[in-house]
């Protein structure tokens, strides 16, 4: 399968290891992966701040990078994938934009729904807490939402359970927002930080040695809180765990 890798801008700049793990994991699972070299960002920072109109050049650039013949575009972030799925349009190449919207996948949904992965050659002997990022969960339906009266399922949990010796811990609030929220994290700094502290403490209280999730943006915020307050927990993106040998 010929796929393109879309990395969120901050992952490219601050978390290359997450990009590397994603790339290696996809290759390990038999994909031919291309990383289009002129990619930057999905445009969400502007759009979520009310300036959707300022994101148009970003959108066109996105289509230039990812338009074409990819079978799938994979992004290790539910939030960016959701944004593209819902908001990507092009004045010049709307057909390509439509193809992208219909073929963009968050990493874990691609693994479970498209590749239909049933086993992984990974071992990770730690207690792991899964942070459900809202856009992946409530937007892309990566897992069942605690508010709805409906049967439970979870794509990221399904994958984590394939990892040898990995123990998933239970949280008191299994899908509460971490408070990152894009520019919310600076414009509503006080509430954002407080939400982050509460999320981290839920993981720590329940014995997580590693806090993981599918969205590095939430994890960047939580990691900032972990490091400031010296909580005894390590933050890792789910791709890094699934890619463990």
């Amino acid at each position, binding site marked *: 399968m010929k796929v393109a890798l879309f990395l969120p801008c901050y992952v490219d700049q601050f978390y290359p290891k997450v990009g590397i793990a994603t790339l290696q994991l996809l290759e390990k699972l038999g994909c031919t992966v291309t990383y289009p070299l002129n990619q930057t960002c999905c445009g969400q920072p502007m759009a979520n701040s*009310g300036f959707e109109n300022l994101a148009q050049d970003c959108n066109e650039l996105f289509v230039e990078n990812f338009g074409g013949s990819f079978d799938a575009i994979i992004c290790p972030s539910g939030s960016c994938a959701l944004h593209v799925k819902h908001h990507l349009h092009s004045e010049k190449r709307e057909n390509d934009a439509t193809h992208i919207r219909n073929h963009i996948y968050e990493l874990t949904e691609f693994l479970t729904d498209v590749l239909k992965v049933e086993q992984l050659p990974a071992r990770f002997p730690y207690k792991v807490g899964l942070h459900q990022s809202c856009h992946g969960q409530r937007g892309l339906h990566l897992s069942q939402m605690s508010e709805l009266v409906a049967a439970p399922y979870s794509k990221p949990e399904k994958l984590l359970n394939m990892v040898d010796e990995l123990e998933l811990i239970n949280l008191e609030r299994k899908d509460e927002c971490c408070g990152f929220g894009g520019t919310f994290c600076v414009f509503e700094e006080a509430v954002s930080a407080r939400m982050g502290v509460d999320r981290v403490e839920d993981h720590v209280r329940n014995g997580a040695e590693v806090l993981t999730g599918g969205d590095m943006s939430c994890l960047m915020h939580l990691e900032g809180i972990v490091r400031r307050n010296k909580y005894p927990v390590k933050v890792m993106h789910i791709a890094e765990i699934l890619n463990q040998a």
Partner: protein
Amino acid sequence: MNHSEAAEKFTKDVDRTTWHDKTLWFVREKRDKAVFQIPEWEALREAGSRIKHNALSNLDEYLLEFEQNALKNGVKVHWAADGHEHNEIVLQILKETGATQMVKSKSMLTEECHLNEFLIEKGVDVVDTDLGERVVQLANEPPSHIVMPCIHWKKEEIGELFHEHLGTEKGASDPKYLAEAARQHLREKFMTRRAALTGVNFAVAETGGFVVCTNEGNADMGAHLADVHIASMGIEKIIPKARHLGVFLRLLARSATGQPITTYSSHFHRPRQGQTMHIIIVDNGRTTQLGRPDFRNSLKCIRCGACMNTCPVYRRSGGHSYHNAVAGPIGSILAPNLDMRKNADLPFASTLCGSCSNVCPVKIDIHDQLYKWRQVLAAEGYVDSTKKQGMKLMASVLSNPKLFRFSGKAGRTLMRLAPFSVSNPLNPWYKQREMPEPPKESFREWYVNREKK
């Protein structure tokens, strides 16, 4: 004070924030327990949403049908274009009755219209009879929650307040004792007031009757003992048929407090012998909202407050931080319709996590509307100009791959060589969080090197 400033003030008291968050989360959990006992819950929400959709699409006809039926029942019907007209109508009715005192059960509409302030200024003595509302009234505060108006008060603080106003023993904080004191205090008001105002939860077009839901029976005590019953309702309270109550009464209390039904669901149809009954139907911006395709279904709201209880921001910033009669996520999509300038901050007081839309019993797409209000507010010029300039700069960098790579590398280098350039108190991120550790190589640089090999 905008939401962010008020929230910062609120969160300064760490223990109180913990307590406030846990108290409201407890209500969310009660709601979860109650709704998970109803296997058809999601279908019920869908039914509620569709009935409201029909009601909003045919509002003109249903309102007239309701008016005709209410008139037939001997009720006097008034129409108010805005809050001021509503308040004047209430005052006029009181004058005609010769009443200078009135009891009032919970009505968020009258909060929205600032009725109490208006009447008090005109020399009318208004007593709120919902216990929580009485607490905030004595404290001279607005409610902080539409269902639990004094949820931000601790019982010890209510003890102090009652000691001062109702003469309870100093230091007493036993809820039963305090509730008993409030009952005695309110009993006297019910017995002596000749006018009572109630809200309306549901107005039934088919019958001209209306339903008021309370847990304390205070609406009934007020209305049954008074010579004049005034019921104030927003135009969106209409439902077409009486049988639709079977959907909404099941949805309302489970969503609000996790009860199967409110303790009192009182159906009013006509004045009893010797009583006069008035209904005031209020627009106050609702038709404007109805005319906004992206926001019209915010009018489906049945005021259960579930979106507040589940909102992680509301729980940690308190209802008053929203500076609007209706706080929380639903307040944040209703308020800009009333005053964009004053409420431009509210749609940004959210992470867009979407939990609000999932608990909403009438399936309002609250978080999508928050996103859409942000676009409207930015387009209409209600977003801070420094933020706008920042966004323009960001957009120009992110749409230019070379500039993006250059800025990224320069930024990372600066962070490594001079961490203080970003890790300083002027950076809001850094106040309570560390900055990410900048790597030497971006992913792209790593990838390009790998491809060369």
